[in-house]
């Protein structure tokens, strides 16, 4: 009887399940392959910034120009794997800050099967964003993770708005188009950084997929992980002032990094900071100084941190 019930439940939920994941699949290719121009707002905690975006494909490669419209004039040009950031003179102190791009625009294919192991996708009806009709999809999971809510363009599948929410429903981070045209040709002019000719500083970076993680030779490890998080990246440095071990984990959607180094003799300092959905906790753990940073609730970060120990 139980088994029969299970089958019925599965049959009932299957079509809905498939449909929402199909939308997410479309979203990823729409972000990469479509032509669009507009303005988006990015809010992280109490910090808000507005960017203009022009996105098109040239010779089979995605080309994208972002311009910050408030604060300092910063421009980012992405051509395939090449990223160039332009800064006006006098804004050197901004270089350390990450520039918010559209969520999912930087990554490779969506690892939907992996995400589906931890998150439940649910259609939440329809809404209007930037003058366009959108489907709303929520991705919810256990208490170790945040919830995600996505607004996808009905006509093209493009991501129009996304939110990371705490367990109580508070919006921690928001990305939202305020104005957007999709499918019209984007001129070469619109993809030309205006700072490129002026007196500016620029830096270029090539993105490459990180190497396979290898924690061989590591002297510490977390004794606990939230379910379904897998090791993505490892790094170990040794220097005159000791060593540092870095591990990065992801469940396909959320990411956290664990940094471990020997604790100094000076008085131990516990620090905690939060920017939007990103929590950072730094704490001494025995003779180790452990830092956990990630788009995870602080309870998850603290439990992770206290589980870090030397490899037996």
């Amino acid at each position, binding site marked *: 009887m139980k088994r029969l019930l299970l089958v019925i439940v599965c049959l009932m939920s299957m079509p809905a399940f498939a449909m929402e994941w199909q939308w997410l699949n479309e979203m990823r290719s729409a972000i990469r392959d479509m032509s669009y121009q507009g303005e988006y707002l990015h809010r992280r905690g109490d910090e808000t910034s507005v960017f203009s975006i022009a996105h098109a494909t040239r010779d089979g490669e995605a080309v994208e120009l*972002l311009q910050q419209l408030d604060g300092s004039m910063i421009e*980012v040009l*992405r051509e395939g794997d090449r*990223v160039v*950031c*332009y800064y006006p003179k006098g804004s*050197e*102190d901004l*270089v*350390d800050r*990450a*520039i*918010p*791009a*559209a*969520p*999912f*625009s*930087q*990554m*490779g294919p969506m*690892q939907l099967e992996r995400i589906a192991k931890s998150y439940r996708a649910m259609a939440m009806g329809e809404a209007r964003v930037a003058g366009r009709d959108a489907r709303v999809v929520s991705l919810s999971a256990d208490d170790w993770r945040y919830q995600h809510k996505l607004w996808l363009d009905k006509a093209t599948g493009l991501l129009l708005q996304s939110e990371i929410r705490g367990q109580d429903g508070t919006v921690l981070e928001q*990305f939202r188009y305020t104005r957007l045209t999709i499918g019209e040709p984007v001129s070469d002019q619109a993809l030309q950084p205006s700072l*490129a000719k002026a*007196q*500016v*500083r*620029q*830096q*270029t*970076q090539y993105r490459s*997929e*990180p190497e396979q993680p290898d924690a061989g030779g590591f002297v510490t490890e977390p004794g606990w992980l939230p379910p379904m998080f897998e090791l*993505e*990246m490892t790094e170990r440095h040794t220097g005159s002032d000791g060593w540092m071990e*870095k591990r*990065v984990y*992801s469940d*396909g*959607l*959320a*990411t*956290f*990094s664990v*940094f471990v180094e020997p604790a100094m003799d*000076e*008085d131990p*300092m*516990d*620090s*905690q*900071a939060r*920017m939007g959905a*990103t929590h*950072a906790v*730094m704490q001494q753990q025995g003779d180790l100084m452990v*830092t956990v*940073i*990630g*788009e995870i609730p602080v309870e998850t970060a603290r439990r992770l941190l206290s589980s870090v120990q030397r490899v037996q």
Partner: protein
Amino acid sequence: MNDRVNESFSAFLDGEASEVDIQRLMKALDKNPELLDDWHRLSQVQAAMAGDVVVDVGRQRLDDSAGDHVEPPAPRRSLAKRLSQMAVAAGVAVVVVIGARWETPQQPDTQVAGIQDVDAAQARFEAQQRLNSYLRQHAEAASYSSGHAVVPSNLQWEASE
């Protein structure tokens, strides 16, 4: 320029000062030692706005160090010395205001101003620099899975024409 300096000082109070902020503050202090007074007031205003109780013990130390700028200034003072000057200007507010963002559960009674605060402020500053570097590394790693941010690499600066 003055606004910039004040912004940097605010960042310092908030525990968010970058390397550039600190350098900017030091340069301004070299040009105009009177700034120390302004900053002291600024720190009180900020602390009051944040709802912190301001105990004005920084003033005393400020007067003690007032004789300093009569002597010819040393060509290069150590970071610690400069930091401590700024911490003095900020008085007790440094500890209280930074504490608002950087919770220190183990030391609830750090509101005693003095040299310890200066050391603590410097230790905090160093810890924060390290944390900033970690935050950046994390953002870069996270962009491969969730792709929320474009992270500029800080490896090389090129001046472009």
